[in-house]
């Protein structure tokens, strides 16, 4: 890289991985406890939250997605989750996230931390349990000794399948 900024500090494989994993577990815990306002606060102003349709989908602009939210849409989505007449969440889903296979790298260009993980979300609602399994990519901004999420991509293994509606966040 030939950028003028100072090279980003090298990652400490053990301690950075542990800190990032703890952060992902915290994020998942906020979803599972349905504290969506606190979950949204983890995301940056220029964030993207993306569940692509196709395996290896190159971009969210030229191919449709199961979900593709910029900050504005993500705010609307979260506000809706708190609305009393959200039929698709009456009663609300209960979820539990399992996060594993966490691997951490640093992007040379912008110093953001890139995290790959596998995620399984079990959802229960109205006598039915569904599983959403996929690979996640987070891009994290180090901030005040913690992180904020600039980008989260969830590649579901059944993204091209005949799914019933997905009103929850994953």
């Amino acid at each position, binding site marked *: 890289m030939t950028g003028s900024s100072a090279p980003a500090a090298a990652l400490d494989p053990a301690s950075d991985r542990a800190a990032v994993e703890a952060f992902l577990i915290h994020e998942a815990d906020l979803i599972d406890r349905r504290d969506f306002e606190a979950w949204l606060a983890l995301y940056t102003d220029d964030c993207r939250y993306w569940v692509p349709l196709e395996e290896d989908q190159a971009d969210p602009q030229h191919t449709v997605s*199961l979900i593709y939210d910029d900050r504005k*849409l993500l705010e609307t989505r979260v506000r*809706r989750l708190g609305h009393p007449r959200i*039929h698709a969440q009456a009663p609300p889903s209960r979820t539990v996230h399992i996060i594993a296979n966490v691997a951490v790298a640093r992007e040379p260009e912008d110093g953001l931390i890139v995290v790959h993980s596998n995620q399984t979300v079990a959802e229960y609602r109205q006598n039915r349990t569904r599983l959403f399994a996929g690979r996640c990519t987070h891009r994290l901004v180090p901030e005040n000794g913690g992180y904020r999420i600039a980008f989260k991509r969830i590649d579901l293994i059944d993204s091209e399948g*005949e799914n019933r509606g997905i009103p929850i966040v994953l």
Partner: protein
Amino acid sequence: MWTTERIADLVQSGRVHRDAYTDPGIFDLEMERIFGRAWLLLGHDSQVPRAGDFVTTQMGRQPVLMVRQRDGGVAVLFNRCAHRGSTVCSAAKGTVTQFVCPYHGWTYGLDGALLAVPSPEGYAEERSPQRRLGLAEVPRAEVYRGFVFASLAADGPSLRDFLGPLISSFDDLVDRAPEGEVEVAGGVSRHAYDGNWKFVLENHLDTIHPRYVHASSIAAANEQDDRSPTDGAGEVGVRQMRQNGAPNELWEGIGLWVAGGGHGYMADYHDDEKLVAASDDPVHVEYQKRMEAAYGPERAREILAVTRWNSIVFPNVSFMSQFGQLRIVRPLAAGRTVLDTYVFRLKGAPEAMFRRAVAFANVVNGTGSPVLTDDLEVYERLQTGLGADGNEWVDTGRGFGRDVRDGDNGLDRGGTGTSEIAVRNQFRAWAEYMTGAGAADAADMAVAAE
């Protein structure tokens, strides 16, 4: 036993019996008498641009494939090996030079002709497989402006007669492309619901439901801070969610038109000024410029003056030209339906318009959409609720007796924009298919006031 009389009794003045939605025997008959007879949209020829490109889908419950031929035509074949019956293609789409059955290697050309079988000397001469059919062709297939239709019935109305006045909705979509062609782009997404297939066709011409079904997304969008950062996706989405909360006067004023065969469309709802782009939007200005260059100012104005929103071609298509959206309805059971969702690129239009169409598809028609998920939930609650005894009838009476004949163009119009004319019209066609009766014998509906 579903006799013709019993089926005819299910559709009455301003009401429909719930068995039309819930009974498995009725569903079997629908597959035979509606999906086995009507022209069904299978897709668009831009999905198979080169020889050997194929997509697999279903007609009713039957597996079929649509494949581009070496001579440029598109063939629709049953996806069923002539030998023991395996499908010869399992992928949703792909490219082949020939079809090879996985079981015993029977091999077919792109036109379905049988090219080879293993150890042909194992057959007596008079039983040679070469003498028999290859992959059977679906009885009728026809392409209109790229849209590939097929019918499982050897006889019946021509595609043009079947579409009737609704052919103009396909023209509206294709004419909006400066190059006069559209293409499927941006992937095909699918979603399912545990409810009857007719719910979605009714819903897309239902103007009362948005305020109730979409209350949560309307409220969330109305409270949305317009200054929040967006890359364009949020802007398209929030605007459409707000539009669903339009005041009652707007809904009463829009136009609902229906035609023979159960088809219909909604118009005078959004227009380019209100929704697609304000007239000072730079993308729209550029688009108008390209349209005028392609068609001349007068014809371009004429094309863009069409304000059609959802069009329904009964029994399996719902589409909308302003954002290039199309859905194909695939019934799997009385209480299970899959929708295949397509987005079209208008060839020659600014690329930004296609990105808006993709954003629209995600927010309004996507599996995780804050709008669609409430529709799907209600379809499932309908299916559950219709299991209740006590009231066996579904009411379709809003606007009954007030429908009006709209000139001599073969269309009837709802007396108001919130009429249930479209549901009554769909069931009129449903009864015609299911009982074999002509329009005059079917349940009374349109022009009852005349």
